[in-house]
């Protein structure tokens, strides 16, 4: 914060070192701090004010932030794994081998280090017991990198298969949030008065009914599958975003720059989407990030009413649901989908933070 504030203090109070020192008691500034650096070569390339497109700016600012780049790389890696992962070994996501069920993770080469060698410790009611099912069953050439589940299915394959479904749901949720939720909230907040009243009452009716009730009704008209899930999300997920967008709009619409734009004859549409929207991109992106895990778990919850992804297909959410049952018996089983889920969300958040800063027009002056 100190740097950010100081950056702007510099312009106004350049000449008064004492005043600056008073404003920042934890630092002592000297005259030298306010002198121009001998960097005439650098400042000739003035990226801030060079005439270049908005998006190029955004790109440059985004890639300057290391954590955002890391997040982006992780998303690409997870996406690639979701596409390629399931075909990296001989198992299929639905193929059951009941004689090889509940095997602990075992990875070639690494097993020689004493980890991931297929042994596991089970906390039984009569004390803990360490076993290596691979050895007991004589499965010398069998490797389940993430272990196998209750049906003898490969958790590696299922995790990446599930990641694929969950990524699709994540993208769908983000689009729904952006398109339906945000527009609804912005329009409702901008016009205010009767329009707002009506739109908010409709929202209250739609949101006042528990979503499980609404989803149960979808069973009547739809077959389970990805499309149904997206449709169900569409009916329920936009509300949170619209409320954020409306609140932000209420906060901003009375501000001077909106008034200025209106005075200059800008239409409502222009003001909403070109003037206000860029200023509230931060909370909007944060909300999108939160709607993603909610959507992923809503999908798993939908299987309660038979609308989730149909078994034996899986998503990260349904995998966590399913493997939860072995949590105290074979804890290694639930770790891979949760780990992928956490990594995915962390990456999304880092990218979102990067995007937020890159897109924020106020950052331009920095």
């Amino acid at each position, binding site marked *: 914060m100190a740097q950010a504030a100081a950056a702007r203090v510099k312009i106004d109070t350049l000449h008064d070192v004492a005043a600056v020192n008073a404003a920042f008691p934890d630092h002592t500034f000297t005259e030298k701090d306010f002198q121009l650096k001998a960097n005439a070569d650098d400042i000739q390339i003035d990226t801030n004010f060079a005439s270049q497109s908005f998006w190029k700016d955004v790109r440059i600012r985004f890639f300057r932030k290391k954590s955002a780049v890391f997040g982006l790389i992780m998303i690409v890696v997870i996406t690639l794994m979701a596409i390629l992962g399931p075909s990296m070994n001989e198992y299929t996501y639905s193929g*059951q081998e009941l004689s090889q069920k509940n095997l602990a993770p075992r990875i070639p080469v690494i097993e020689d280090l004493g980890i991931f060698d297929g042994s596991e410790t089970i*906390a039984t*009611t009569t004390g803990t017991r360490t076993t290596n099912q691979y050895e007991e069953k004589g499965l010398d050439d069998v490797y389940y990198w993430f272990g196998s589940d209750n049906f003898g299915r490969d958790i590696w394959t299922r995790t990446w298969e599930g990641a694929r479904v969950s990524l699709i749901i994540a993208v769908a949720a983000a689009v729904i949030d952006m398109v339906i939720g945000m527009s609804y909230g912005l329009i409702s907040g901008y016009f205010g008065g009767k329009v707002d009243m009506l739109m908010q009452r409709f929202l209250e009716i739609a949101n006042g009914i528990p979503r499980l009730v609404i989803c149960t009704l979808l069973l009547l008209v739809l077959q389970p599958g990805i499309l149904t899930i997206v449709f169900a999300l569409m009916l329920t997920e936009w509300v949170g975003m619209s409320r954020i967008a409306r609140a932000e709009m209420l906060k901003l619409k009375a501000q001077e720059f909106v008034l200025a734009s209106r005075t200059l004859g800008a239409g409502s549409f222009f003001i909403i989407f070109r003037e206000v929207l860029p200023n509230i991109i931060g909370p909007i992106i944060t909300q999108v990030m939160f709607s993603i895990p909610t959507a992923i778990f809503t999908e798993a919850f939908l299987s309660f*009413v*038979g609308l989730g992804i*149909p078994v*034996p297909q899986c998503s990260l959410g349904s995998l966590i649901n399913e493997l939860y*049952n072995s949590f*105290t018996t074979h804890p290694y089983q639930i770790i891979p989908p949760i780990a992928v889920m956490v990594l995915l969300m962390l990456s999304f958040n880092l990218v979102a933070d990067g995007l937020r800063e890159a897109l924020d027009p106020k950052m331009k002056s920095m």
Partner: protein
Amino acid sequence: MKNAKSVLAFAMAAAMAVTATGCGASGSSSAAGSTGTAEAASTEASTTASSSALNVMLETPVQSLDPQVATDGTSFEVIADFTDGLMQMDADGAAVPACAESYEVSEDGKTYTFHIRDDATWSNGDPVTANDFVFGWQRAVDPATASEYSYMLSDIGQVVNAADIIAGTKDVSELGVTAVDDKTLQVQLNVPVSYFLSLMYFPTFYPVNQEFYESCADTFGTSPETVLSNGAFTLTSYEPAATAFTLEKNESYYDADKVQLSGLNYQVIQDSQQALMSYQTGALDITLVNGEQVDQVKDDPSFDSRGAGYLWYISPNMGSVPELANENLRLAMTFALDRESICSDVLKDGSTATFTAVPPQFATGPDGSDFSADQTKYSDVCAYDPDKALSYYEAAKQELGVDTFEFDMVVDSDDAPQKVAQVVKEQLETTLPGMTINLVIEPKKQRVEDMQNGNFELGLTRWGPDYADPMTYLSMWTTGNSNNYGLWSNADYDAIIESCSTGDLCTDPEGRWSAMYDAEKIVLDEAVIFPLYTQCNAEMINPNVTGIEFHPVALNRVYKNAVKAG
């Protein structure tokens, strides 16, 4: 089912052996009652009046404490804790006198006269009278009560006029049950019902104190103040759908000397991992274990599984799916199912593979043997045999002129059925190339409705016995029966069932028995259903606790004789 604890001495034997004494069945199962009676008997001698209460885990909350309204096993178990019927189950499942001291059956088998004990009292001090039973039974058939189990009196119990009263064409007072005097109850039946005495421990037939009931108005059975006890325990804390409630020993119970427990503490836990952890900390004495946790408990001597009575099977819709109307295709499918593997590799809770239409271990015949003890008797039409499956499959393809089949299978959204369905899908698809099974997961109510409306292709469903007779299963597949989901119809079969339930064979136990085998054979020959397994509950029981009686029919757990040591 390791110990075969639940081999039942069937009350029918009691009815056969109807003599002056009431309790004829207890001798027929001496070998089978491994834990139940023996241990209970041994502790009766010990004079230490155990003061500790038993902590019991329930999977679902109680739905109702009104004996004529309740329909689920949990409610039945709790109602039976504090209510005694005319008869109660002994450790082997035979009907033994409870509120009734003795009874007589008329020559023609159509009139039962029960004599009620003088020392049977309600917890408010009123004596239990014949009128309490009359009132209870009348409530059960009263259209105003709309009891879901009213058919226990009409179709199954064959009590005179029950069917007409339910249909609304006769008044409840015309029900064929009368209080001759305060302590004598007389029941009139339409036809002799061989298993009638075993119905008497079913909660629908329990007494209700009319005066008390009317004083509670609409709140009957919703709190300790609005229930009366005439059984081994009394309710001390309870609220509707409670997750925890308690009972304590009923000191005014006529058999109170035999009750060793000081009370029962019920705890509803819907998460089996939490339940097991609670058990391990000692907070529970008896708990259910999920198949996934068996690895944690299989070496523990207190781990055991007991029959829950339910037969799980797949019902093909022969009425509206032309491919499934083909007998060869159905046979191919039933041969492609590896039931042993489903039980031992997936369910792991002790459930037993079943190859008969009537599951084993609940119905005992006139000679004292289990109706379905021999699981191989239909092995030529129901077994796991991929080669046979393929040859029937080829024949079916020829007859139907198609190479690929795709069926939807409706499945409950509960844990176990989903697991089983995934294996069934895999087995059918691997053994029968070209067949695709799509699983349609639905909430149970929805699944049942779809199946009742014929809106399904394959359905994974279950059936629990209502009374200890094979007919509780076999009557399902008669033409027009609402549980004949597959809309199968066979005149010969209908004739056999008719004759066994209301016809000539009613009075000929051996003949009836063998006729029921004939009927079962028709069901399996034509693959009307694909039986899968008989459900068992895997349980952990505190080694200090003995004498809990387990039954697959009506009352799953009975605690009257249970003992919890030090």
